[in-house]
């Protein structure tokens, strides 16, 4: 067999593993840090005879993957960690029913919330459901574990979770790739077996017992998994999971300590290997990111194997945020009685201007927010949602952000909770189609008086411009029937539905006023292409400039577009200007004009 080394992103390595496993279907919803798995696969779907889709949400993605597995095609559902909350309903019962062909659920965790609303630990879900979880330390393991996960899933008749973290999904390394299987004729087809496909009480009672009994089989299977490696040295030892194993190895080398090291890549960790470690070591530090999942398992086992074990874990290793070499080295130093290495402090850093992520120059969300404030007033309530537009928090129009699609339902609750003020909530087109539909239906059904603004930039911008049902294009570039947000909003029961171009600021304010004064549920669709997509499609607008008439009132600066700068006395427009023209409408003195060629 010929092996080739490539410099691969962790997510691309996972995609490679999916290809090497001959999967027939991959479904997912975009979410950082998971999106590149499907993005890597979608151009290859045709030549590998594989169905690849962006599903409407994670629950749908998992259900589609389950259907494929039950039809005997290896399948994958991919999502970010919080996506599994949405998909948790099928996930929990799937463990009872089992799979047909191998099914891998990929949930990319995000310790430190680099791009997320929380940092929940998906290993807890795996424990909760009673399914095994594989935790790669680097892109090579991510690829190899993906291949292994399908085999394990089929051997156990269970879904298997693959849980990379941001530092694996968005790491790159040299990855040795294997061969792709020959394309064989599909032998897919659904096999009828109601006893394990129909979750009736009479069926699931014995299936639950079967799932409990399988836990022992899982332990046996994982005892030979190559991802769990023990090196016995001194009678003090480190047990570390996933990427923490690499931090621990490097820290031990750096500190020149001859501690034993057990690297763990599976949840549960195999009890045999843990027992061996516990019999060898009298003192152990468990290093893992987020929850003390492994530590709890070690503590439980120690009660039987070594009750006098001197066990450390979250007492020395932070439970919140991500780990790094420095944190792990200091935890090990504390165990060894060595001094901690102090963080490097550079006092001059206090001159640094912050550089937070911001809405792009010319982003239409900024214009929509401006129109909303003008029409609804600053005293109105502005629940919002998850997407690029959450970055508009500084404008005062993002007052809540909870989870995908929550804006409308939270707004409904604020209204029925007794707030009488105008309420205008916002969510993006992709988020609306993901899980805003049910909130809108509920608001209409229960008669909530509020305005729902759909910030329609015709893409899933935040995660890298993936298509969705409103775009009329699938993950693999096939044309599909574009769903009309207006028709959907009316069908779900909105009494007033208006569409407006936010770049036409005056008209947008007028429409928002009409929505504000409407006596029932109104929907405003603020439609304008994402500036990034527009630039890629070749849209060029005439940039703007500030004329001598500028009086230095700074109203345009407060609008917050990165293309507008303060020179000390007047405003000026820099080269980032995309020519949206909204600042010219915001300027009270009429001092901003198009550049005349």
């Amino acid at each position, binding site marked *: 067999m010929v092996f080739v080394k490539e410099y691969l992103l962790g997510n691309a390595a996972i995609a490679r593993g999916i290809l090497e496993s001959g999967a027939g279907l991959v479904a997912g919803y975009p979410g950082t*840090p998971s999106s590149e798995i499907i993005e890597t696969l979608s151009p290859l779907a045709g030549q590998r005879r594989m169905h690849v889709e962006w599903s409407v949400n994670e629950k749908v993605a998992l259900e589609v993957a389950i259907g494929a597995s039950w039809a005997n095609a290896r399948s994958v559902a991919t999502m970010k960690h919080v996506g599994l909350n949405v998909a948790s309903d099928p996930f929990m019962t799937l463990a009872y029913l089992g799979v047909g062909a191998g099914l891998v659920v990929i949930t990319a965790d995000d310790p430190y919330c*680099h791009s997320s609303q929380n940092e929940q630990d998906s290993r807890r879900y795996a424990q909760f459901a009673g399914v095994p979880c594989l935790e790669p330390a680097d892109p090579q393991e991510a690829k190899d574990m993906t291949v292994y996960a399908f085999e394990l899933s089929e051997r156990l008749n269970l879904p298997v979770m693959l849980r990379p973290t941001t530092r694996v999904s968005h790491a*790159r390394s040299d990855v040795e790739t294997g061969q792709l299987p020959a394309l064989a004729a599909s032998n897919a087809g659904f096999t009828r077996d109601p006893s394990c496909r129909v979750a009736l009480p009479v069926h699931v009672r014995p299936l639950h017992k079967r799932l409990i009994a399988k836990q022992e089989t899982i332990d046996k299977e994982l005892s030979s998994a190559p991802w769990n490696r023990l090196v016995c040295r001194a009678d003090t030892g480190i047990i570390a999971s996933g990427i923490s194993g690499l931090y621990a190895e*490097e820290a031990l080398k750096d500190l020149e300590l001859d501690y034993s090291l057990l690297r763990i890549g599976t949840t549960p960790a195999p009890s045999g290997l843990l027992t061996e470690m516990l019999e060898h070591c009298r003192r152990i530090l468990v290093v893992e990111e987020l929850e003390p999942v492994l530590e709890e398992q070690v503590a439980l086992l120690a009660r039987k194997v070594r009750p006098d074990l001197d066990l450390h874990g979250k007492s020395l290793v932070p439970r919140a945020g991500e780990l790094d*070499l420095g944190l792990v080295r200091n935890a090990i130093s504390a165990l060894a009685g060595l001094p901690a290495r102090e963080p490097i402090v550079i006092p001059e850093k206090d001159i*640094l201007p912050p*550089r937070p992520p911001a809405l792009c120059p010319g982003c239409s969300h900024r214009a929509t927010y401006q129109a909303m404030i003008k029409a609804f007033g600053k005293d109105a309530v502005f629940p919002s949602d998850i997407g690029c537009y959450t970055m508009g928090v500084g404008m005062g129009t993002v007052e809540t952000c909870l989870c995908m699609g929550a804006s409308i339902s939270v707004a409904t609750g604020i209204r029925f909770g007794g707030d009488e003020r105008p309420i205008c909530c916002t969510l993006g087109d992709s988020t609306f189609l993901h899980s805003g539909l049910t909130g809108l239906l509920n608001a209409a059904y229960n008669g909530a008086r509020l305005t729902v603004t759909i910030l329609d930039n015709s893409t899933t911008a935040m995660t890298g411009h993936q298509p969705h049902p409103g775009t009329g294009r699938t993950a693999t570039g096939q044309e599909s029937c574009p769903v009309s947000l207006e028709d959907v909003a009316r069908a779900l029961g909105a009494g007033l539905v208006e569409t407006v171009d936010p770049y036409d600021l005056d008209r947008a304010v007028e429409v928002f006023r009409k929505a504000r004064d409407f006596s029932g549920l109104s929907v405003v669709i603020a439609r304008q292409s994402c500036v990034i997509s527009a630039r890629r499609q070749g849209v060029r607008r005439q940039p703007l400039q500030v004329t001598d008439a500028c009086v230095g009132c700074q109203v345009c600066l407060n609008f917050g577009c990165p293309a507008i*700068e*303060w020179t000390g006395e007047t405003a000026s427009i820099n080269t980032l200007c995309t020519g949206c023209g909204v600042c010219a409408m915001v300027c009270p003195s009429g001092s901003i004009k198009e550049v005349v060629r």
Partner: protein
Amino acid sequence: MRSSDCDIVIAGVGGQGVILISDVIGRAAVKAGLPVRGAETHGMAQRGGSVVNHTRINCRYSPMVAEGGADLLLALEPVEALRHAHFLAPGGTALVNTAPVLPVTVTTGKFAYPPLEKVLSPLQRIGTVRAFNATELAASAGTVQAMNVVMLGALSRYIPITEEAILAALAQVVPEKHLKVNLRAFELGKAEVD
């Protein structure tokens, strides 16, 4: 004890092409038969925010460079050099593009953009600083977009990978029609530090 041959931290602003630099180094390292690790910033932080990338040559550990562990700090923007100065190893080298990109906190007048000498002096205390206007050099090569490749050219003089392997990797990453401009940019960056 060293865990890699060369630890590099690449800092910049979303959109400046930080990822391309590490992609080229990584591919070149693979061509040279060296294990290599990289860590990238994707997602939310990219939107005009500060981005950072870690690259470790001949390394089998995690992709993250430790504080005070970077042999090289490559900064595509001056204040981003200072923001990540705690990564620079004592005696390490910082290669800094002196052309500022003003953050929105400065353009809106809430914060001041500090003068260059104040930005660079803490770095000079830690190691060697090579500062030059890579954006201007890229413009003279044909396009300011190639600023990242100017910086890559400068970096190439400091990393334990042959120029041949780096250029071969660059040719894989850059579209063919832009390759000439990028090669010019690479040469200008290299000449700047020679």
